């Protein structure tokens, strides 16, 4: 049986704090109206996830969790946000978020989804350790909010950030699961996919903008960066 953890226990409290911070950042993503702020909020969420993975590594002493934390920190906290910034700048995209559903209704929906996640998960996981229960509920909330963002946003970039944030939720679930093997493998496999998605976004946006995939168009846009 997993050790029973509860409020007042440091290892539990820190993990709980980090998981909740990730959920709060999901809401930040949901009400953001400017692209750069959106990307920064995603980076912040990834950093929180890295901290959560590292903390689990400290508590449970698994080397693979530290590797996961490091991968998350470098790739999702730094590299992907930088790539997204570059895409926005070089393709001169609109700096504001186009929404299919207004900010306020999507926030209301978001709260409803979190309530749903808690209602679904907490009774189901009565047998499991406390941390796993709440970790799963919070992670499911982050996943659902990511999905909501994909549905309620119009442009490819914001949909991609919704997907990326959803993946943060998945990793949050995997990291918090006591003794779950292959967490490092999952996170690295997903990173490959994220890298392809970001690159795909780049191609897709070029196509949308110029109706061609000729990268030479970028020279014109980027103000001679490539020359």
């Amino acid at each position, binding site marked *: 049986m997993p050790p029973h953890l509860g409020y007042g226990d440091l290892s539990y409290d820190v993990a709980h704090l980090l998981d909740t911070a990730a959920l709060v950042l999901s809401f930040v993503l949901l009400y953001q109206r400017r692209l750069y702020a959106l990307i920064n909020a995603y980076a912040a969420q990834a950093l929180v996830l890295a901290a959560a993975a590292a903390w689990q590594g400290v508590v449970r002493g698994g080397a693979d969790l530290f590797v996961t934390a490091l991968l998350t920190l470098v790739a999702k906290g730094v590299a992907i946000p930088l790539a997204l910034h570059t895409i926005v700048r070089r393709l001169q995209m609109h700096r504001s978020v186009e929404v299919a559903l207004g900010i306020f209704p999507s926030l209301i929906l978001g709260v409803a989804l979190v309530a749903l996640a808690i209602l*679904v*998960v907490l*009774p*189901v*996981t009565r*047998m*499991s350790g406390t941390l*796993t229960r709440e970790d*799963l509920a919070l*992670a*499911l909330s982050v*996943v659902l909010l990511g*999905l909501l963002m*994909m549905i309620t946003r119009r442009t*490819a970039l914001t*949909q*991609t950030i919704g*997907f990326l944030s*959803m*993946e943060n939720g*998945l990793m949050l*679930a*995997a990291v918090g*699961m*006591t*003794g*779950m*093997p*292959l967490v490092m*493998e*999952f996170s690295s*496999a*997903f990173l*490959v*996919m994220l890298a*392809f*998605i970001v690159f*795909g976004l780049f*191609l*897709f946006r070029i*196509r949308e903008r110029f*109706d061609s*995939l000729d990268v030479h168009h970028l020279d014109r846009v980027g103000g001679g960066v490539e020359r």
Partner: protein
Amino acid sequence: MTAAGIVGAAVIAVPMLAAALLALLPDWRLAAWGNVLAALVAFLAAAAMPLLGLHPFFLLTDGLAEHLAVLTAFVGLTTAWYSRGYVAVEVDAGRLDAPRLRLYHATFQVLLGALLLALLAVNTGVTWVAMEAATIAAVLVVQLPRTADAIEASWKYFLLCGVGIALALFGTVVLYLAVEPSLGRGFPAMRWDALATAGAHSNGVLLNLAFVFLLLGYGTKAALAPLHTWMPDAHAEGPTPMSAVLSGSILNVALAIILRLRGVLAANAAAGAGAIDPGPPIMALGLASLLLAAFGLWRRRDVKRFFALSTIEQSGVAAYAFGLGGPFAVFAGLLHLTLHTLAKAAVFQCVGRAAQLRGGQKFADLGGLLAGHRRLALTLGLGVIAVAGLPPFGLFVSEFLIVSATILRAPLLALPLGIGLVVGTWALVARLQGLWLGEATPDRGPAPGLGMLAPVWLHLAIVLVLGLAMPLPLASWMRGIAAAVG
């Protein structure tokens, strides 16, 4: 290392190593032959496992996994052969060049290897990683022509299947949580073979939660409604051998996973441990896909999109049979899946060549094939008749069995099932008339030779023989699988 170990490693490692080599090989003609050779080795290794009774300890070697692995590797082999001629035409037409073909041949082997790994992996997590790799490989192929439509299709594919893959991972994590108390912490709780027996002693409510996510997640990959919309686009764009023929096998892998989950939940529900009966949700998704696709077939103008929709229809039929459950229905579903894979691969191979011949893939471009290209038209026609589920081909038998099982177990569902099947068959036959007798357009490419059509005939011959007289060893082999998982 034992013989079993060597053969087991070869099934997965040969395609993966071949991918690395083919990515570096500059001469595409040589790479096309290398592709065939690697697929041949993978097929021989996959076939050796059940035939010689080799069971490597690191692979999942139950009947279902081995059966689908042999099927996938066989389609991989014939497609690699077909692909040689196909890419030669594409290069001549200037649609593909040497660097893109390097990517093409490498991803061919990655996709084949990932599919085999997903089927044969013991660990639920490894299956997930392999499915993810297969998705990425398939996306890379769909975008290969770099046309606006291809980029759009691959983007749609990526986002939808990315969400599917993400949901499947969440399901995998929850599944681990559900069975961990009864199987023990760590790797033992992620073994497919242990899951089947642990079903009855697991946390049923958690199993439900895992099932919902896994069904939606892998259901996306099985092109079950409502998450099927990526598929017609993905099949229509990209080079036919991979985007249509080989990626069809992704559906089989996803359906096999759903079938295994069904067994786990059904055992739990039977023991009264809190799980729902998994049959109705799977049947509902299957029937919805069947009906949606059967009626949607009538509105398609693009031949590849048309047959992709027909694949969704047949995937729905197989999922429905698996949901119905019991050895009889699962046997019928498995037979249907097997025969459909062979017949649809044959059809896509013909369609791909016909589209090259006429320089377009709309029905309007492909009319009147019978007048100018009798051999191609007749082969395509036989393939369409096979896919439509008309006798004497084997899909008639499998559909008949599925309808019979329905009448026995859930008579009211026979009506929507029957309507879907009839409407789908009707659409296929109606379109075939146009392909054969419609107004002919001028040829813009070379006609296919005998070598290109040989794999198609091989596929159709197998489908025909299995329809007329199924060999006894094969029948008892498939009955055994159905009894084990049904």
